[in-house]
Structures are given as structure tokens and as C-alpha cells.
């Protein structure tokens, strides 16, 4: 049973043999990079970059719920990106005070 479910996943038209899987999956590395940068000194954070990434995260979170089929992977990674970017921006604002 498990192997037939795995086969269904493996051979899915948006599965791991296709770019439809890897492009949104790799987007998680943007969040990993941002979390790794939580220890960077706040003066090295770029306001424009974090604002742009955060806004695009919010818009893509909406986009992923409007397309057919709904893309929960893209929704979750985009929402997480908005959160990590917001935190980075808050670090820099707190430092500037």
C-alpha cells in the first residue's frame, strides 16, 4: 500500500521528476538562508531586499490559493518567507532605535 502511494507521488505530473516540484521545494532554501542570517549584525540587513522578498511572499501565498490546483507547498513557503523577512526587518528597526 505504501509503495503504491509512493509510486503515485513519484509519477505525479507535478512530482519529483518535474520542475513543478523542485522549484517551489527549493524556495524553502530562501527561508533557510534568511534564518541563517538571523545571527548577522542588523546593520548588514538590506531593507529593500527584505521588504521586496516579504511582499512577494505575501502575494505568492495568495496566488497559490487562487490557481488550479491549489499549491499548499507554495502557500506555506511563501507565508514562511513573509514571516522571516518581517522578523529581519524588525531586527533592523530595533537596532536603529
Amino acid at each position: 500500500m505504501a509503495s503504491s502511494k509512493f509510486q503515485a507521488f513519484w509519477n505525479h505530473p507535478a512530482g519529483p521528476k518535474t520542475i513543478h516540484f523542485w522549484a517551489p521545494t527549493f524556495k524553502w532554501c530562501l527561508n533557510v538562508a534568511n534564518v541563517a542570517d538571523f545571527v548577522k549584525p542588523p546593520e548588514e540587513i538590506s531593507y529593500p531586499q527584505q521588504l521586496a522578498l516579504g511582499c512577494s511572499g505575501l502575494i505568492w501565498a495568495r496566488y497559490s490559493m487562487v490557481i488550479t490546483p491549489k499549491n499548499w507547498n507554495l502557500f506555506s513557503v511563501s507565508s514562511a518567507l513573509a514571516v522571516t523577512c518581517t522578523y529581519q526587518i524588525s531586527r533592523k528597526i530595533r537596532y536603529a532605535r
Partner: protein
Amino acid sequence: MSSAFKAFLNSPVGPKTTHFWGPVSNWGIILASVADTQKPPEMISGNMTGVLCVYSALFVRFAWMVRPRNYFLMVTHSCNECVQLYQLSRWARLQGFLGKKKEPEAQE
């Protein structure tokens, strides 16, 4: 002219759809990075820039393969790839990864 514009307005990847506005939001990332090219390279995050390079390469392919095919997204990520590679080279030069060319000159 107006029929071409109407065709654009009513296109399945046109401005009445999210297939258009998603890539528009991605242009913010590119413009932010272009602004950051004027800042000192010490401010560049190697982590984020390296990941953005791979990310945009993957999404160029994604935009080509997705249906409906999204040329706007493809162009957006191609441009981002160029800016991120430039930023990565600035970061790499600062780290000393691109310093090898000076050696032959020193030997002369």
C-alpha cells in the same frame, strides 16, 4: 494597436489574472537588488544571494514548463538571475574567491 492591447488585457496570463501580478511582485526583488549594487559589498548576504541564484534558475525553467506558459515570469527570473550573479561576484571578490588573476602579474 488597441486590439493588441485588448488581447493583452484579456490574455490568460494578463493583468486580470494572478499569473501577471505574481511576477510583478517579483520585480520588487530585482529592483531592491539593483539598489543594493550601489551599497558596499560587506552588506551582501552570501547565503541569500547564492540561494537566489539557484532559485531564479529553477523558476526560469518552471515558467517555461507551467501551463499557461508564463513568459513574463521567465523574463523576470532571467533578470533576477543576472543581478544576483553580479551581487554574488561582488561578495566573492570581497571574500577573496576571485583573487587568482593577480598571481600571473606578480610572477612577471
